[in-house]
């Protein structure tokens, strides 16, 4: 007999027994909050009918500790797969300003996870979206508001996009920091944010925002955007991460233009080594690099430069680059 299979089966059975004990402890209202929450960690989901009923009672019992109610809600997540009434109740609670924040957060997890497999939730998507919009207006928890904003932004929701745009124009009204607003707005290529990116990049409130603005300019084939990316990349006083993301952007928009600048940066001893490593990495994974691949003079110089470098990272990255890109040169 295979003892490996036996041991797997045995562990499933043992786990089932432990789970039953943990569920019993979690349901036991006489036990302390700490004991019950510790027990919940190994409960898994509530699957049996009687477990589901008890967990529902706990989740809806206003006399229970909020943390216990929230845990019960999390454990009921698989019940959302088929129960219409449960899903309806969750949506109603999520949109209700009176629902305690901790409970709201748990409901948000349960509902969003249920978008991955609950038919009752799919058929109530309009109400769920509306509840998410309510969360933006009514939740006191920044974290919960941010999650709701992200779930809506991922669906290219107009309401949240307008709200984020308002925040970008009036930072005091912003519900998230500007760099996050740009990230969320950029989920929709067709959003308004792309119209203001160049302006933000020219006058950013902080480095992160600048990075986000420049990174998202990559969608824009406008020569002004390309010019801005190139100028920023060539500016040695600029932060090296910012310069590299400009290179990645240019690699999509104008690979030829990028390669000319990259050649100079790679052979420049005064350049930041981290940037050079990143640029070599980017060249390695670029599809259209004939200008650098076929420039034998540049390749010789680059080989010498990498060999002479004290940076192990640079040497290793050069080797990877040479292995894949320079078969002809060899």
């Amino acid at each position, binding site marked *: 007999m295979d003892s490996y299979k036996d041991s797997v089966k045995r562990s499933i059975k043992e786990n089932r027994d432990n789970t039953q004990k943990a569920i019993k402890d979690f349901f036991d209202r006489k036990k302390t909050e700490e004991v019950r929450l510790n027990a919940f960690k190994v409960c898994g989901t509530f699957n049996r009918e009687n477990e589901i009923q008890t967990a529902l009672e706990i989740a809806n019992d206003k006399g229970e500790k909020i943390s216990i109610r929230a845990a019960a809600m999390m454990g009921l997540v698989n019940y959302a797969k088929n129960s*219409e009434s449960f899903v309806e109740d969750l949506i109603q609670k999520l949109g209700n300003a009176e629902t305690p924040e901790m409970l709201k957060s748990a409901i948000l997890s349960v509902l969003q996870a249920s978008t991955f497999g609950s*038919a*009752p939730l*799919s*058929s*109530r*998507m*309009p*109400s769920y*979206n*509306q509840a998410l*919009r*309510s969360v*933006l*207006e009514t939740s006191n928890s920044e974290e919960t508001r941010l999650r709701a904003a992200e779930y809506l932004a991922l669906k*290219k*929701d*107009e*309401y949240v*996009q*307008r709200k984020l745009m308002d925040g970008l124009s009036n930072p005091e009204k912003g519900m998230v920091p500007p760099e996050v607003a740009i990230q969320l707005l950029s989920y*929709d*290529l*067709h*959003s*308004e944010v*792309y*119209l203001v990116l160049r302006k933000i990049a020219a006058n950013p409130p902080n480095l992160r925002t600048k990075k986000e603005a420049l990174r998202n300019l990559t*969608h*824009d*084939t*406008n020569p002004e955007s390309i010019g801005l990316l190139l100028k920023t990349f060539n500016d040695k006083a600029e932060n090296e991460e910012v310069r590299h993301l400009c290179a990645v952007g240019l690699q999509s928009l104008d690979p030829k233009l990028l390669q000319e600048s990259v050649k100079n940066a790679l052979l420049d001893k005064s350049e930041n080594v981290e940037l050079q490593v990143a640029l070599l990495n980017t060249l390695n994974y670029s*599809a259209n690099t004939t200008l650098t691949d076929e420039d034998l003079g540049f390749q010789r110089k680059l080989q010498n430069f990498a060999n002479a470098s004290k940076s192990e990272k640079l040497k290793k990255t050069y080797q990877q680059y040479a292995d894949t890109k320079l078969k002809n040169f060899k």
Partner: protein
Amino acid sequence: MNRNTPEEDIAGEIDRAKASKTGRDFLLKLLDKSQEIYAGRASYQVDRIRGYAIASFEVVGLSELALPHVLEELDNGHSPYLIAASAKALRGWRSKDIFPSNFLIKALTNIGHKDDCTSFESYWPNAKPSGVTTATREILLTLQWMGGRAKDSLVFLKRFRNGEIYSISSENRQLVQETIDKIYHSNSFTGSCCQVVSSKQLPKYLTIKSLMEIKLQDQEGDILRFKDFFAGHLTVVVFFYTRCDNPNRCSLTISKLAQIQTSLSNKGLSRVRLAAITYDPSYDINTRLKEYTLNRGLIHNDNCKVLRTLEHRQNQIADFFNLQVNYRDTVVNHHSIELFIINSNGYVIQSFTQFEINSEDVVNAIEKCHLNFSNRSNYISHFANGAISYLMLLFPKCPLCWATYMSALGLSGVSWLNYDPNLIWVLSAFAAINMALIFFRLRSQKSYALFFILLASYLLLIGSIVFGLPVMWRYIASGLIAIFTFWYILAVQTVWLEEQWDKLKLRLLNYRT
């Protein structure tokens, strides 16, 4: 109103148009996707403006010109707001005998689980709007409003209610049941529909000669001129872009083109050329175009290419085909489905726009065109037409010209017949027919100046008779009619001559290649 007009101003104008009886023309204008007002805006702004305008047709009444735009959203739109607006707008449709319930059913299928809450009580979206509704709800309400005229949809609605199409919420189930009941218990006429004609009609005799020198790049990276691929070949051309986020439009259009390719090949028509041109040439570089179309089953070869314009010539193509597309900056913010068939003489002979492409219809149209082309007697008739056309310059050649001559001569002679009161009405009727024919002819060329001059001359003539003005006015009016009618004949024939010359050039070009 233009790209810089703030949304609140546009919304205000739509509200005013909704309140006035004459506002329909303004709303109708907003349905054209290529309008300047949509340029430079995000997609959600475009959708909001269009959706708000479309929903207003419920109040002002939906005209035949607006109907295709509304049906387009139901057919292949994916914005719950626009679909809900379109369903509402249909309730402004006054035709009693036919009704496009099939489009509503298609919209229900399309919307699936992507529906959303929305409201039309005010322009701006709101977290807690009053009058909240959904696309599904509006579609069902419109079906209820149709009553017995939606009987064709009962089979679908029962399956929808039972969750056989996709899972359905209890409140929607109840609404579907109410809809079924209302349709059942309605006594109104059961009509089915619908051969809806696209609102976009390209002018007749539109020739691609002005595009011939435009530089293109194909999916392999090879550079060619427009004429290299299109001249002398029967061609199907579609427009799309790879960043389109409505799978019912671009992605499906390319899949349909692949189906057309297979059908043509099965029918021995694989020499018909197929072209897919991107709306977004700066982003859609050849490698992207190749992967995208390959993944949708299109086989690239000498007769099938995916193309992007070079040297910023996209506008020229957009203007030529009157493409229903607009841009935020360099990114498309909305567009329609667009397919055209261009014959081997370079004339756009058929358009399939706005609605999901039916590959069978396209293949049938190609077959028909191919048959016409391969019929040699056609060449003779072309030649005969050419010869006759010169005679037409001097002789009356068609009912239009008869009406023209008769009314022109008749009306100018009216001054000598002013004692016969009945004849003036007969001749006025000729004048009306003449003016109508001239109007329709000139409308296709978008040239109305001549029409208005002639109209003014006729009015002057008739007015001078009716109000008993001095005879001199009748002579002046008659003279004007004679001069401008002849001018009109010349103008029409000049265009015709020009077309014949273009055809000849294309033939020569084709012969060379």
